[in-house]
């Protein structure tokens, strides 16, 4: 079975082809690339999903060495995301499905993230925990089987990736802040500044990062610009450590609660090398198996949408053509 996946929920315009669970192609055009090149490279000159999506789909089909007529189904993100952005993918997917007379499947973006790891780690078995750490989300899910998910942890304010970004801004570093903080933190002393690792009264599994943002701001406000510059790698290292400690502390708690040993990580923060190092240490200590999918599968992409669509198709599902885009679509209560 060959499934075309389409993802346009926020910044990325992406299309991918999955054949019998194997990834054939995954083309991702990021709004960040647009920003970087600012229209210099003609094929990425336009920032709009609607302008780019058709050629991205053609590229995905071509790279998979198939033709449109080989497709057995179209899977597309129908939520959560931005209404205007979702509609571009959803409408094109419906049109293609009608034109090719094949099934169409609406996929929950978050479900896609949960299945991204299965693409390059097909031996992953249920149940597993999926930790999604990006600019927009910080969550830990347990995936008990296909379609059965429990949300254990969520941020109550800012996401971890956002904490990296805003911390970088406060330190006068560039955007995106994640890689900048990581670079600055190298050689810095992670114990020099004592940033908070908040424990929440209401839920011991949830994350909160907005207090950390306030803490780094006021640490810097007490310093002159020169002092900040002199201590910047220590501040960055201590700040990064506080974010990572908080992430891993909650992961450990969810593991202890569920006794699930297998863990998959998704989201842009998975690229942080200090996070990987400390996550691997924790896994070794607790006897966990932790899997970091390839970065292109960690961030928003259509491969994961095609994969989740493929799983749904296998279980005999398909969506009705009147399926609407749902910006605040949730996966579990």
């Amino acid at each position: 079975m060959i499934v075309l996946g389409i993802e346009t929920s926020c910044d990325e315009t992406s299309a991918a082809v999955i054949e019998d669970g194997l990834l054939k192609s995954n083309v991702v055009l990021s709004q960040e690339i647009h920003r970087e090149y600012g229209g210099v490279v003609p094929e990425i000159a336009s920032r709009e999903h609607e302008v780019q999506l058709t050629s991205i789909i053609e590229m995905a089909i071509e790279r998979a060495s198939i033709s449109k007529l080989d497709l057995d189904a179209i899977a597309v993100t129908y939520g959560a995301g931005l209404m205007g952005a979702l509609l571009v993918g959803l409408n094109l997917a419906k049109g293609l499905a009608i034109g090719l007379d094949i099934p169409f499947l609406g996929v929950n973006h978050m479900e896609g993230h949960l299945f991204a790891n299965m693409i390059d780690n097909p031996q992953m078995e249920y149940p597993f925990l999926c930790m999604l750490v990006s600019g927009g989300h910080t969550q830990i899910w347990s995936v008990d089987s296909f379609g059965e998910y429990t949300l254990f942890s969520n941020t109550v304010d800012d996401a971890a990736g956002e904490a990296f970004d805003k911390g970088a801004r406060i330190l006068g570093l560039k955007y995106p802040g994640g890689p900048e903080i990581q670079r600055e933190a190298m050689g810095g002393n992670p114990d020099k500044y004592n940033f908070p690792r908040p424990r929440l009264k209401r839920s011991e599994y949830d994350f909160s990062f907005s207090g950390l943002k306030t803490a780094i701001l006021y640490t810097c406000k007490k310093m002159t610009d020169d002092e900040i510059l002199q201590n910047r790698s220590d501040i960055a290292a201590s700040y990064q450590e506080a974010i990572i400690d908080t992430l891993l502390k909650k992961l450990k708690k969810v593991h202890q609660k569920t006794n699930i040993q297998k863990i998959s990580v998704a989201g842009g923060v998975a690229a942080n090398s200090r996070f990987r190092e400390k996550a691997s240490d924790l896994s070794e200590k607790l006897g966990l198996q932790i899997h970091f999918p390839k970065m292109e599968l960690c961030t928003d992409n259509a491969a994961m949408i095609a994969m989740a669509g493929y799983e749904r198709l296998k279980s005999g599902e398909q969506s009705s053509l009147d399926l609407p885009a749902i910006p605040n679509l949730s996966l579990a209560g």
Partner: protein
Amino acid sequence: MKSGWKGGVTSSAEETINLGKSLSKFIEAGDIITLEGDLAAGKTTFVKGILDGFNFDRQVTSPTFTLINEYEAQLRVIHMDCYRENDLQRWINLGIQDYFFSDDVKIIEWPEIISALIPKDHISITLKSVSEFERKIYIK
């Protein structure tokens, strides 16, 4: 918006939430509220309070990366954040003007970048950090 809401000075996140909650009683369908204030001024915390006042019991998180969060509360609330996306054209492509002329309540963080698109009759609220924990919150 109904008149009469008095801002105030808060000295904790909880108090900022409570002040946001007090504002929700004055908000009417279709209102557009802009929130201006520096990083860590408590804008998202304040929105949490407004949603709390609309009996919304799910998580309210920062829209910095997601750009727009929609909440089905007593009134439908559209929570936008222009911090990360400074390309006006992208906001237009996302249909931001359709939101402005709907009955939903629109709350906009970092509104400066799209100020040319925001209808004139909006309510502008400022959040100022007085100290690490104190915030002064008032209608401009």
